[in-house]
Structure formats: C-alpha cells, structure tokens
C-alpha cells in the first residue's frame, strides 16, 4: 500500500529517478506504445509521453492514480496518457505495448506479486520482443557483520537483569529475514550476485542460486545483506548493497542462527532460494563456512523463514487443498454480510442487521458499521480475486 508521500519520496531519490529517465531516453522510440505498471500519479508516464510515445497506458491500483489526469494535463500530455485504476492483472488494454516500465520492487526484486504481474503483462499487455525497463535485476548478497543496532538490541535483551534466558526466542528471531539499511552492515567480503532475472525472458517465479566468497576482512559473520543491482538499460545501472550509495530502497538482512568469527582466507558459500507460494516468497539460505587455515571443521547452517510465515501446523493445514473449513460464528458473520450486500442495502442497513443476528460479535451498531464498511471495501483491494 503506497501513499502519495511514498511516491514523492521515490521521485525525490534522484539517483533512482535519473537512472529511470536516462533509460527511458535510451529505450523509448517515437511512436512507441508504452505501459507503466505501478505508475503512481504518472511521473514516469509523463516522461514517456514527452519522449515521443504515441500512447502511454499508466496502471495503478492505489488511490493516488486519481491525481494522474490533472498531472498529465499540467504537463501538456493528457491526450497521450490513459490512466487505468486497478491491478494490471485485471485490466485489458486496447493495444499491446512496445515498452514496459515498472519499479514494483520495494526492498527486493522478488516483491510478492511483482513477477506474477510481469508474467501476466508479457502474456497480455506486451508485444513480442517488447523492451523492458528494467531489463535485468541481479539478486545480490554480501556476507557481513550485523548492523551495530541489531547487535545492541540483541545484547540488551540477552543481558536481562532478571536472569531470564532468551536463547529460544533469539534463535527464532534469527530464523527470519528483516529489513535493514544496507550501509549499516559491515561487509566481510565483496557483494556477489546469486541469481539474475532477465525480465523479458524469465518463466519461473521461484529462484535458486549460489554464491561463494573468500573473506577479506576479519569479523563476526552474523549473516548476509540481500540487495540488488538493477540494469535499467544497457549501461544504466544502480545498486543497493552496502558499498553503494544510499537509496530509497531498504535491503534485507538474512541472519545466521549462530554467528561465526572469520578471518581473511576463510571460505563462505551460500545456496539461496526464494520459493513463491502463490502469495509471497519463502526464503531459504544454506550456508557453509570453511576455515582457510583448518582451525575448525566446515560449519553448515540451513535456514528458512517458513516458521515465521506459518506459525503453526494448523495454519499450514488451512493452506492445503484438502482442508474443510469448519462453520464458525465468524464465517457466519461474513456469509450474512455477503448475502446482505445484494446491491439494494446501504452499509448502515447491513450493519444494523448484523448486530441483530450476531449481538455477541459486535459491541454496538457503530462497531458493526465500521467492520462492514472496511470489510466490504477490502474485498476490492489487494489479494482479492
């Protein structure tokens, strides 16, 4: 869910913005039909029109798209941009596009529905051989000592003055990834690419790759910074890793369950996997650390964030195709709300009847109104069919 403020902050990141504008200059030819996925209020779409695109289809699911037509008019290109509200997977364009522009990454090129949206765009919105901006994303890792903030936080918890042991909790916390500022981590070896996405050609949503390093700087190997290098067009790139300039993007921190002290000459190898489960990515990182001088036997740690995503076997069962949902009070409330929303009743009427039928679920009519209004509106938003 991005707001106007988020879009303005993205545009204010001049390194990102100027790279995209340079790529558009290099790629867009006069007369091209262009589609932008996740256009916001249409900043890149206006650039594309000014660069000579015959027409731009600017698609955006968030409310901010309502500002688009006035923004395009103020920049003299309103007649060549069509704004479409909704997910790109649910709209149909009158013509196929020659160029696709998008930045749906967030901290990672594997951001939830980005690759499914691009596969759909290639199948339905783009002509054969359409040019993509970005052309490629390289998924990268940097072995590193954790940002001191994470270390301090963990130490403050572990040094509990009341003698309470936190081992199991800390171990669980180290099983999942978390957002991090890449430059806050201390790299122990150079950033390396573990997989490359050719956005015009990829077919699989899940990604599997490896990286190997020789340690260059002594330190505590706490985990890996996950970042990316975008190749927007040939020769136009930017990177988000620890050695790069700071950008709007966060990075991802993939911790090791047990930190390992390493020195120059030690070897680190990682097999990284990102598995798309239909809604989001599950990450798995298998790490092997080898002492260059043989001072310890190779250490192997296998981790993934499944326990973070599926906190119990019951939650898993609910995701399997054979699960039979029990009829609960909550299900009855939803079923009633759906039946009442028949195109004739106001949300206030619906709420009043829900309170009558399910008095134990709602404290008062106002609570029912708030719930019904939000729930019905949510049916039109992200994740709904």
């Amino acid at each position, binding site marked *: 869910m991005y707001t106007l403020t988020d879009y303005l902050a993205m545009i204010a990141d001049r390194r990102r913005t100027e790279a995209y504008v340079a790529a558009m200059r290099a790629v867009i030819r006069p007369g091209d039909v262009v589609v932008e996925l996740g256009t916001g209020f249409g900043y890149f779409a206006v650039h594309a029109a000014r660069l000579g695109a015959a027409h731009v289809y600017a698609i955006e699911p968030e409310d901010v798209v309502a500002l688009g037509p006035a923004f395009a008019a103020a920049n003299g290109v309103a007649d060549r941009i069509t704004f479409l509200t909704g997910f790109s997977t649910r709209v149909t364009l009158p013509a196929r596009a020659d160029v696709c522009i998008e930045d749906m990454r967030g901290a990672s090129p594997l951001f939830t529905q980005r690759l499914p949206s691009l596969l759909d765009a290639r199948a339905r919105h783009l002509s054969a051989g359409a040019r993509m901006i970005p052309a490629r994303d390289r998924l990268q890792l940097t072995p590193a000592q954790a940002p001191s903030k994470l270390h301090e936080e963990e130490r403050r918890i572990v040094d509990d003055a009341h003698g309470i042991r936190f081992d199991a909790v800390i171990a669980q916390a180290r099983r999942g990834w978390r957002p991090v500022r890449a430059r806050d981590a201390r790299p122990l070896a150079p950033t390396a690419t573990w997989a490359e996405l050719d956005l015009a050609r990829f077919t699989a*949503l899940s990604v599997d790759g490896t990286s190997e390093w020789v340690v260059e700087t002594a330190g505590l190997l706490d985990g890996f910074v996950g970042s990316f290098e975008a190749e927007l067009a040939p020769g136009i790139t930017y990177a988000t890793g620890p050695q790069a300039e700071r950008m709007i993007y966060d990075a991802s921190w993939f911790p090791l369950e047990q930190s390992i002290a390493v020195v120059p000459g030690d070897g680190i190898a990682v097999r990284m*996997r990102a*598995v798309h*489960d239909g809604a989001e990515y599950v990450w798995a990182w298998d790490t092997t650390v080898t002492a260059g001088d043989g001072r310890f036997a190779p250490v192997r740690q296998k981790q993934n964030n499944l326990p973070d995503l*599926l906190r119990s*076997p019951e939650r*898993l*069962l609910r995701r399997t*195709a054979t699960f039979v949902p029990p009829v609960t009070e909550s299900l009855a409330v939803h079923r009633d709300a759906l039946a009442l929303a028949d195109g004739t009743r106001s949300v206030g009427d619906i709420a009043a009847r829900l309170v009558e039928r399910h008095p134990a679920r709602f404290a008062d009519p106002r609570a029912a109104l708030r719930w019904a209004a939000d729930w019905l509106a949510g049916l039109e938003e992200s994740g709904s069919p």
Partner: protein
Amino acid sequence: MTGHAGDGAPPSPLDPTDLLQLAADQVSADLSGETVILSMRDGVYYGLDAVGSAVWRRLAEPTPFAAVVAAVVAEFDVEEDRAARDLTALVRDLEARGLAVIRPGARE
C-alpha cells in the same frame, strides 16, 4: 500426508537397499513436531504428521529404505510389515510430488 491425491493403486514396492533422500527443490521446517514442506516445483504446501516427520528427518542424508523402516519400528509402536507398507506409500507419494528421490540400491 496432507493433500494426498491417492489414485487407489498400490504403490510400487521398495527394495530394502534402495537409497532415499530429500529432493533439493523443497524447503521445509519443523513446527511443533510436524513438518511443513513447500515444493519449489509447484509452490504447494504439504504437511507431515509425527511419523512422517521422523522419516523426513532421516532422509536429510541418503538412507537405505530398510534403515528407515527399522527406525520407525524402534521409535513407534508398529509392526515391521505394517511400517514397511505405510512407508512405501509415503515415500512413493513424496517421490511423485518431487519432494524425495529414490536411487536403486544393490538389489540381490
């Protein structure tokens, strides 16, 4: 196994020397004694109960079928014939879903 499709036909038998191992294209985790598996092949989740989870843990390394049966007999109160029959079905199911690989052993 959660989500078992089961076509009714008996699974083809395994030789005691057949080597069983987890496939590389999956991610799994232990959740309170049960195992959650996400297949990289189709992005589908599978679940294993306590017995299935004990088998799953053993298959982290290549393991002869006979050793898996023996371990289950030792850990759970079950007869060897029954264990072999049930484990054959489970392992063939895992294989069919791309979650385990079976390499022929040195059959006599």
